[in-house]
């Protein structure tokens, strides 16, 4: 159970010397599981990269990521996979459901060949029920609407009972009505499943619903606001 994630001096550089792109520039950040945190910024501000590094999808060029006190930068690929598998649930802008699998199979995909203390299939059905898709258990992604696909993706993110849910523009490909429903669902899940939510978005309106809003620009955090207690910190 990882209560907090701490980033210190994270820098990410893409490309080689001539055409270097600095995606993240010396970011330090402390995230708490209790918060519904949103990261906001324009295209190219580095918010998705930040999410990838937090979610161990990518390694930073320099800097350290701590899960509680554990320095995950020192972990090997397989250990990272396991960490992701057990503690992180991802939701992507393009849903990334496996097209050959049905809704319930997609939900179960992270647990493939993994033993759990609970009944995987029952859990998967419960989760699909939770996201309102109890009648679409055996539908293929191609038979689902965008909003429905994203719901399946959310259920998939929850199947392993993660500590954290990382959502990368989960509503980017959806219309505004569906978009609101998805965010509402995420809030509900946050409460029900008791996990930290990290939402990357470029929609100011959406970010307002979070407990904490981190604003990024050109690879730097330009604002970090806690909305509940109206307290603001500015972090370089």
């Amino acid at each position: 159970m990882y209560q907090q994630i701490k980033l210190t001096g994270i820098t990410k550089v893409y490309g080689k010397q001539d055409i270097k792109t600095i995606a993240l520039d010396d970011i330090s950040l402390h995230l708490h599981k209790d918060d519904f945190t949103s990261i906001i910024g324009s295209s190219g501000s580095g918010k998705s990269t930040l999410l990838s590094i937090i979610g161990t999808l990518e390694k930073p060029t320099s800097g350290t990521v701590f899960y509680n006190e554990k320095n995950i930068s020192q972990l090997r690929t397989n250990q990272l996979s396991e960490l992701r598998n057990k503690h992180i649930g991802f939701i992507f802008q393009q849903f990334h459901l496996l097209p050959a699998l049905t809704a319930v199979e997609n939900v179960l995909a992270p647990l493939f060949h993994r033993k759990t203390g609970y009944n995987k299939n029952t859990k998967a059905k419960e989760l699909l029920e939770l996201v309102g898709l109890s009648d679409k258990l055996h539908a293929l992604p191609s038979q689902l609407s965008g909003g429905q696909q994203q719901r399946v993706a959310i259920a998939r993110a929850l199947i392993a009972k993660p500590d954290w849910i990382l959502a990368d523009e989960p509503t980017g490909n959806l219309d505004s009505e569906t978009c609101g429903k998805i965010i509402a669902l995420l809030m509900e899940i946050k409460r029900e499943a008791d996990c930290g939510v990290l939402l990357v978005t470029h929609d100011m309106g959406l970010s307002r619903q979070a407990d904490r809003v981190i604003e990024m620009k050109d690879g730097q955090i330009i604002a970090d606001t806690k909305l509940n207690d109206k307290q603001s910190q500015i972090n370089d």
Partner: protein
Amino acid sequence: MIKWIINYWRRNKGKFALLVIGAILISSGLSFLIGLSETSKGTIVNALEKKWNASYDIVVRPNGSKSETEKDGLIDPNYLSGLQGGISFEDLDKIKEIDDVEIAAPISVIGFTSIEIVFAEMKFPERGIYKITVNYVENDGIQNYSNGYIAYYGIDIGLNPENMERLSHYGLSVNLEKNVELYGTFNFLVAGIDPSEEAKLIRLNKAMLSNEGNRYFSDSDKVQSITETSEGDEELEELGIDFNYQRVTAPVIMSNVSSINNYQEATLEKLDIGTDLESAEDIKEFLAELEQNGKEGYLDTFETEPMETVKATSEMLHENLLEQSSLGAYRDLILYEKASPLTYETVPSPFPERWDIAYKIISPGDQIVNIDGEKTGDISDYTYYTKYRELSFYDEPALSRAPRLTPEFLGYYDPRQLSISSDPVTELPMETYRTPTAKHMLDAYGSPVNPPEQVTATSNPFGYLMQSPTMLTNMEAAREIVGEEAISAIRIKVAGVKSPGPESQSKLEAIAQEITNETGLEADITLGSSPQPVLIQIPSVDDLDSLGWVEQPWIKTGESIAIYDEAVLGYSGIIICLMAVAIMYVFTTNFISYLSRKKEFAVLKALGWKNSKLRHLLLAESMLIGGFVSFITLIVLIILQQQNPGALSFWRIGLIISFILLIYFTGALYPSYLVNRISPYEVMKQGEISERGARLGRTRGVVSLVRNNLMSRWRRHFVSVLTIALPTALLILFLFVSFQLDGVMYTSWLGEYVALEIGPIHYYAVILSLVIAVMTTAELIWQNVLERTKEIALFKALGWGNQRIYMMVLLEGALLGFLAGIIGIFLSLGILSILYGNSLSIEQWLWLVLINVSIPVIVGLVSAVFPAIRAVKVEPYRGLQ
């Protein structure tokens, strides 16, 4: 995991169908071809072993006995008939002592003799003057050679047959009996053999007829030799009788079939002389008339009334001989003519496309004989033979010094029962016991004879075709008759040499070399020889016109080694090519399957799947297909095995199955390695068309666009280029071998046989390989189109027409094919120059380039058709999302 994979396939039916088609194509094709080529390879080796395998591996001949023709690697099939000894018994012993010489069977061509045999009995019905016409007619398949006489008989007219003096006044013969026996001659070749070696070599002992009293040679057989001479016998000298010859009494066996084709015919006619010769007066009057008017000449003028005609063929004569229980009656078999070689000279072939080698028989010049007080002048005046060979006799044409063979007749053997190759279509000419044959193909003016006539040997000892030995005696007898150097040839069988092949060849070469070193004799390897049709011009000899040209199967030495090598190369070629293409196909499909699911794998990695899990997934998937392919292959192979037991061992089937599983296993290795390198971060990327790419020159138009597209993904395209290039190069090789008639392949009958036998399989394999190449390339281009959907949509959005998109994808296929063609040219050139040296003509070059470019381009175009249709269907808005 398997459920997962099966679900995946179930929901990607199109992809799965393609996979199954490919798998079935590979498995059935591979197994069918391997099975087929195994059986055909078996057939070839069988053919080499059974149909063309001589009963001996090496033939040793006297030094200097090689004809001019042997420069072409061709041996006159009649070589034995021209070898009157020349190898000593000492040499034979030396050869027998060489290690690994299992059988050394000497043969001594002793010479020709004849037996007179009653062939007809004529009955004179009543008193009168009769005419008997006897004709000895031989046929060599081209024409008749007839030789005969007319005899007049006075029957019951009171003449005394003892009174020769008086009879000569009338030109009449007289018979006191009412019938007369007519004798025909039976002319045949006598040879000496070593009974025990011959029994080992060809089981001559087992070919003896099972008649009572028939037996093979035994150790207790005695050979006696005495000199019979008139010298010192005053009585004989007084009578002017002069003889001096060796009489050899020796055991003999005889063939039960005649090797020549002739018949003797006799006609009995009664002369209508105007009187019935009832009274003594009448007879006296007629005889006086006869004496005055010129005897036979006068008799010839009378009308005749045919009474009886009797005809006996050589086969019947031979049978007559068989029926007589013993040859003991023939005390004196005079050995008269000796074996004599034919001389050949190379002449231009009148039809070089059909026969690239032609020889002409050089007829010997006139031979003068001069025996004091006996014979002078042209030797051919003393023999009725047409002489194609130098005449050669034991005694210049006289009988007083020719050796006599007194046969101790043991029995008859049947040459058809001998253990020698017995293919009826292509008779191996080198077998001692088989009559050589030929076909009359062209007449004296060079016009084809239609249909060609079968030409057979005649009894002529100096003819152009020689009969095989009919009477066999042992070597001891041959030594007594011919002398110390009586052996004409030694046929050698080497221990441990079974079928023609590289190992046998080198072993035989070593032994042949040793024989030559030890004895100075000519030793030639006959194992793996093939009959090769050679055209022989029969010249005009004596008063006989040229017969034109005959085609004769000659012995082409070392032929089956060459054929074997080519056949093995051909088989290895198709199997290796097909396997390589199969490997490339499996590799490509695995790779493409990986490429198309790269994003999925990234998602799974992001969801926390470990690399090992993904690797297992890929391997399991590939092995599942491999298992399916193996299963089909197994079924096909087992069916083939049932149909043709022995051709495919279970061990070999196991090997093939393991190979297929190995292909699929290795095919999955590269993708499962690549899977490690997928970054889960890729799921976060959106919409990039291509991250990096090699470029070759600027992009200016469709062609350069396609070119740069191919270059940017050159690794995968290289595989596809190879899958097209490999079978194309092989096709060139097969075409070249099939059509180049100058080479080794078609000139001998064996080559023709083998080429005919294996041709379709080769082409089938090439076509199969090309179909697999089409599938590989199609999958590749399909994947390219998929990956470039956005790009294509963009082009469409920018206003490109369907036609142009279609052309672009087709061009991609054509360009891939063209590249394959260029590689194919180098490949096939390499193979051809290794095989045949640098001997391509301009025309062959043109064909090579034409085929090597056109076929791959067609393959590429065909591969691109479906992807192109798919590309055209891309909607322009897809690129703008």
